[in-house]
């Protein structure tokens, strides 16, 4: 560490602004770099001005990124996929060897035969798509309907029977953009959701089912055999064991979690922290006496310290973060 400290003694502002470790401090603001640079500044008060200048330089280089819309992304991907299928796939094991055209036909035929045989042998056609903590993924179903999974979620469906029955099991949270066609069903522990062709968000965790309708019509049936509810665009409901509550949805806005922000209105703190665990792949320990509290507010999934502060400050809680074991302890102030 002493070497590290002296390395910077004769740096000018532009030297600092080029240094990875320095950039990390200014841009990422993580604890390690902050600890180092705070200490360094205390030891080198005469460098204060140079550091300020270097910080300005790094911050200066910041700009608006051009972002593609989700629709654009899907369109590009669709075109990529079409291109993959158009070209016959001949796997050349030895790139230096040239195949004659009849040989190519033979290889393709052999490949097809192998494909058919393995298809007949491997009848278990259940597909499971899982997103790990800290990861959101989009998946295109066989009918080109797109499902986007929030972190720590899972869907399963039967690929071979898909044409007869568009049915997906869900544990977790997902946004569906369904291609028009026959009935499309999402089954979860708390109930099921049925649509024809539409877009909607489903939250199915801890026996709690939340559905928000963005377009088309969505039918929600709770497991407990209560009357089915019909949702129109802009409406949503939350079904728990005891009650059904309605809420309204801003259909102009993307579902918050898809933009990386999580908004809560009077939701059990434990549920909020479970989402935090999934988004950042952490383990959160909550003090017993605050487990029943409710939280209103929001956090984002790109700044852990910020997120912890957003949750803790308004509730007068403090947190301890151990970044090596990825463990957080939350207790009253």
């Amino acid at each position, binding site marked *: 560490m002493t070497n590290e400290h002296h390395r910077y003694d004769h740096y000018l502002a532009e030297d600092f602004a080029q240094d990875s470790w320095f950039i990390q401090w200014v841009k990422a603001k993580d604890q390690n770099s902050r600890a180092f640079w705070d200490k360094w500044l205390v030891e080198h008060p005469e460098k204060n001005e140079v550091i300020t200048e270097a910080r300005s330089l790094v911050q200066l280089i910041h700009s*608006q990124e051009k972002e593609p819309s989700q629709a654009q992304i899907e369109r590009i*991907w669709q075109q990529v996929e079409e291109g993959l299928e158009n070209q016959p796939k001949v*796997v050349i094991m030895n790139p230096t060897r040239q195949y004659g055209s009849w040989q190519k036909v033979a290889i393709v035929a052999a490949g097809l035969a192998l494909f058919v045989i393995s298809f007949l042998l491997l009848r278990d056609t259940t597909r499971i798509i899982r997103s790990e903590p800290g990861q959101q993924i989009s998946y295109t179903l066989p009918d080109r309907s797109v499902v986007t999974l929030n972190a720590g979620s899972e869907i399963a469906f039967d690929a071979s029977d898909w044409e007869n029955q568009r049915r997906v099991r869900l544990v977790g949270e997902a946004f569906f953009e369904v291609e028009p066609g026959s009935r499309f069903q999402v089954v979860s522990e708390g109930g099921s959701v049925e649509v024809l062709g539409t877009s909607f968000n489903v939250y199915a965790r801890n026996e709690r089912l939340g559905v928000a309708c963005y377009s088309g019509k969505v039918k929600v049936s709770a497991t407990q055999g209560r009357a089915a509810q019909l949702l129109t665009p802009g409406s949503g409901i939350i079904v728990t064991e005891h009650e059904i509550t309605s809420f309204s949805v801003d259909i102009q806005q993307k579902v918050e979690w898809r933009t990386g922000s999580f908004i809560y209105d009077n939701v059990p703190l434990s549920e909020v922290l479970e989402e935090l665990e999934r988004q950042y792949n952490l383990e959160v320990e909550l003090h017993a006496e605050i487990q029943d509290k409710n939280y209103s507010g929001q956090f984002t999934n790109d700044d852990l310290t910020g997120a912890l502060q957003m949750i803790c400050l308004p509730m007068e809680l403090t947190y301890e973060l151990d970044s090596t074991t990825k463990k957080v302890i939350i207790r009253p102030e």
Partner: protein
Amino acid sequence: MEDEELWNMLKQGHRDALEKIFRQYVRILYAYGNRFTQDTALVEDCIQDLFQEIWHKRDTLGATDSIKRYLLGALRYGIIRKLRQGASFSSLQDTPSREFQLTLSVEEVLMAEEQTQLERTALQNAILKLTPRQREAVYLRYFQQLSYDEVAKVMHISYQAARNLTYQSLKHLKQYLSAIRALCIVGSTLFF
């Protein structure tokens, strides 16, 4: 999943791996590509071509320790090639500028201070004075957070050249930064 593992899955012909790579990097590629040209459709085409190409030649792809660096480099090559073709075929039309676009934010730096038109102009001039290559190096280094080694590989220049490009840019911007600061002081003494 680690880059290497994902890349290997792609090379073994896992289509999921291709899609995963696509979804993970499409935003970065889109943002980077659109700095070379105003023609969004051209950038989209190049991204499509890039992913189809890596799929079709997956058997012969080399190893990479950084998918991001590989994709940025490949997209850069594709876009520049397309822009050159366009330029030779349609010299009558407005050829898209091959200038690498970069805007800097005065807001972040001078948050507390009143901003005047003069400051904005000064900063805009500072950026215009950078060469496109300097701008690109700065972009890759500070926005995409690539190492100098990676910047060099993406831009097909030497390590030292990558360092020099960013160093020159920073020195240049620093001068303008002091100029802006001076303007602010002059401004406040005039008004108060």
